[in-house]
């Protein structure tokens, strides 16, 4: 009886440990188990700059959603964004791909617009800006001056 109790307790701890690990990996990985809340909008970018699924979307630096998918569509990057339900995006809002720091990870920053029209779920953010390619800019200044 006593032996059974010890084995039972150890088993419980092991299961609790596995559950904790699963919870951590889901939370840290930014995965959603049962569907996801909020709504989706998409945007076309001439260059995704290495943006990945799960990258964050911010307004004024505050995270308001995550990237659901990045696909190629007619040689452009089609990015589907999952936004929090309470976030409303105006029709003339601009979605720009930015880099954390100079070489950090990529994220999308949305600057709200002036329009009274709100983009509905499944709608498109028309105004997009690809990431600024610092390497290319630099090389232009370095090699462009050759006379």
């Amino acid at each position, binding site marked *: 009886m006593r032996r059974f109790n010890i084995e039972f307790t150890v088993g419980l701890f092991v299961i609790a440990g596995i559950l904790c690990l699963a919870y951590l990996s889901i939370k840290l990985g930014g995965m959603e188990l049962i569907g996801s809340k909020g709504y989706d909008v998409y945007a076309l970018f001439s260059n995704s700059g290495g943006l990945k699924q799960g990258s964050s979307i911010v307004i004024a630096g505050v995270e308001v959603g995550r990237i659901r998918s990045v696909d190629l569509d007619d040689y452009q990057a089609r990015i589907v964004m999952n936004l929090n339900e309470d976030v409303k995006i*105006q029709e*003339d809002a*601009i979605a*720009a791909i930015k880099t954390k720091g100079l070489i950090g990870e990529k994220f999308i920053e949305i*600057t*709200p*617009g*002036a329009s*009274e029209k709100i983009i509905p779920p499944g709608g498109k953010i*028309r*105004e997009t*800006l*690809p*990431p*600024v*390619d610092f390497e290319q*800019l630099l090389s*232009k200044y370095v*090699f*462009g*001056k*050759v*006379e």
Partner: protein
Amino acid sequence: MRRKGWIGIMLLALWAACGLDPVWAGVPTEKVKETTDKILAIVGDPALKDPAQAIQRRERIRKAVDEMCDWEEMSRRSLGRHWAKRNEQERKEFVHFFGQLLERTYIDKVEGYSGEKVNYIGERVDGDYAEVDVKIVTKENTEIPVLYKLRTRDQRWWVYDIVIEGVSLVNNYRTQFSDIMAKSSFEGLLKKLKEKTAE
């Protein structure tokens, strides 16, 4: 009965003529090219090179740009969500000073023109919106990508944003204006614009 049919056909023709057909509105690339050519002609005009003609030259460039740019739309988008809270008078004032600021900032650059080539790469039309891809080739053979964003208003194409090297004019001012608005007020922003244009 026959007369009714005729009226129907005439109404249909009228509707087709008035509809916002992209062909009717004029090809976006042509709109951009027309203005660019006009500006290049003014900048390259030897009769206007004289410093005494500087004011006249500026005026003519501004007039050419006016025919292409939708200042109100640019101002509205640049001010962003603060636009809705402004009354008619404040908006008018803002459009005026913002236009002057852009004129000051960009005409200086245009006046420094020295034989750069302008290549038209392509355009994309999506309903009432269009994008025109342009590459400016400098004398050192450096290519500068410029993207004009246009939309139709009054059956014409108007530029509402210019993206140079992936940096949008509207987004640039939108972030700056919202910074200023967060720190001070709309009056403060107007004051800053006035100071900038009076310099």
